[in-house]
């Protein structure tokens, strides 16, 4: 069952002349993890904003086509109606903190207060998601006193506490150090195991290969391909779109380690090992 449906989506920012999203059509199944890759200015973040309803409600401009999330046509509903269906976490953890709350616990409560939840339900959700994201121990700390990785996990907890059906992660680790990044990816792993629908925009292709069920390749706002990570990263023209495959795929190409009777190369170390041993 498709939880997101995008039909002929086109978008242009008010101050630009070119389309940033040009005729995108795809769907995302419930429980799927969709990776979005492409060079800078490919339209990845803009697509995330369009899925979350920020386009056309927050960012105006020329908008065409249709985005449906959980049956709601994004264009016809306010962002406040959409946030219970889709959550967005982006790269800078610092700017995702409201700045108005003095503790991590209150920070997570912010969205729930806006949704008008009763106090008992708020406490239940806050504790559940702070524990899930492993930041319960810092619940009484000021959010701005946390490390980048912890702050990003608080941002994810704040969004998850609103219990959306889809979580969009737009380069969630690009401003984090290796320790912070691995903390966030541990969370993504947990969420994919739990069957949460995730849209993941990431420049670290190893992580896309690890977690994505399918990968959407964008180039200059256009949809180049939507396929399995193996098919996307085995493309010979991948570099033309500013995307470098995972290191393991490059090694596999050099050593000619591929799936039997196909032109596809492994994208994870585990698959590489398996194919190498079976050779």
């Amino acid at each position, binding site marked *: 069952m498709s939880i997101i449906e995008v039909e002929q989506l086109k978008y242009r920012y008010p101050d630009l002349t070119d389309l940033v999203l040009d005729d995108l059509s795809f769907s995302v199944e419930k429980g799927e993890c969709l990776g979005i890759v492409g060079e800078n200015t490919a339209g990845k973040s803009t697509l995330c904003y369009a899925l*979350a309803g920020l386009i056309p409600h927050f960012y105006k401009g020329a908008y065409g086509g249709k985005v449906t999330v959980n049956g709601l046509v994004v264009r016809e509903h306010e962002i406040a109606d959409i946030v219970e269906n889709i959550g967005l976490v982006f790269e*800078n953890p610092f700017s995702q903190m409201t700045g*108005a709350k003095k503790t991590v616990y209150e920070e997570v409560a912010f969205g729930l207060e806006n949704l*008008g939840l009763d106090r008992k339900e708020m406490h239940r959700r806050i504790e559940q998601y702070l524990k899930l994201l492993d930041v319960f121990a810092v619940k009484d700390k000021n959010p701005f006193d946390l490390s980048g990785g912890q702050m990003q996990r608080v941002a994810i907890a704040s969004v998850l506490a609103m219990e959306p059906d889809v979580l969009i992660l737009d380069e969630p680790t690009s401003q984090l150090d290796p320790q912070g990044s691995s903390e966030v990816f541990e969370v993504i792993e947990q969420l994919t195991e739990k069957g949460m629908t995730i849209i993941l925009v990431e420049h670290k292709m190893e992580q896309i290969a690890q977690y994505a069920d399918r990968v959407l390749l964008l180039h200059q706002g256009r949809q180049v391909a939507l396929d399995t990570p193996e098919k996307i990263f085995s493309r010979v023209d991948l570099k033309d779109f500013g995307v470098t495959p995972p290191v393991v795929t490059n090694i596999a190409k050099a050593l000619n380690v591929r799936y039997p009777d196909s032109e596809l190369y492994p994208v994870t170390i585990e698959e590489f090992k398996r194919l190498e041993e079976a050779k």
Partner: protein
Amino acid sequence: MNTMTLYVEKDSPVHHLDPLVKLLYVVAAIALTYILPEPLFIAGVLFVTLLLLLVGKVFRNSLPILTLSLFLIFSLVIVQGFFHPDNVTELFSLGPLVFYEEGLYVALILVLRVLVMIGSFSVLILTTSPDEMVERLIKKGMSPRIGHVILSVLQLIPQMRATTSKITDAQRSRGMETEGSMLTRIKAFFPLMGPVVLNSLNETKERSIALEMRGFGSSMKKTFLNEEKQYPYNKLLGGIIIAIVILGIVWRVMA
């Protein structure tokens, strides 16, 4: 974590009062200095205000704020004493300048009024945490957007200051002179302000998006994580303050 607040966390009866009662006291105290513009009455209001600062254990914390107002007080005395239009009775003279009794009287009222204003605001600000104050006001119908602006400014300005300091260090490490003569400092100001302003604008946009995604624009009735605090003698104190103001007005009209 630095926040821009003068709140002093202490356990005192004044701290436990309803922020709205304290706000009402500020308004009433200032109003009384205009309703009854006699030095004795104003001194009475000032006495009560100072008493509240003492009971609230924040008298010492209010002294720097009062000290800051000394320049204003001094100016008031000089200007009124020497130049008030109603000046007739000479007190003393300094060369060609004559200091008058009438001017001193007007200055005394103004100085006491300033002290009441500063003192009563100190009672409110030093004994009330900003979030308690804002949450109370939102529950009374103030727009959550205004409340958010007040609270976020208190936390984000120190954060912006930290960012400015980081950018200053970055520019300095690339050889920019940021210290020295006034001209050097002015020259350094623009290369510093560019990144600071752009960074702030970018963060503001991102924070707006984050707030939208947390349902900030929702038209649903907002709920609160913290239970409504019970304040002792809330109605009684509010009633007494309003009664005193009404009595003051009656006194003024009758007199």
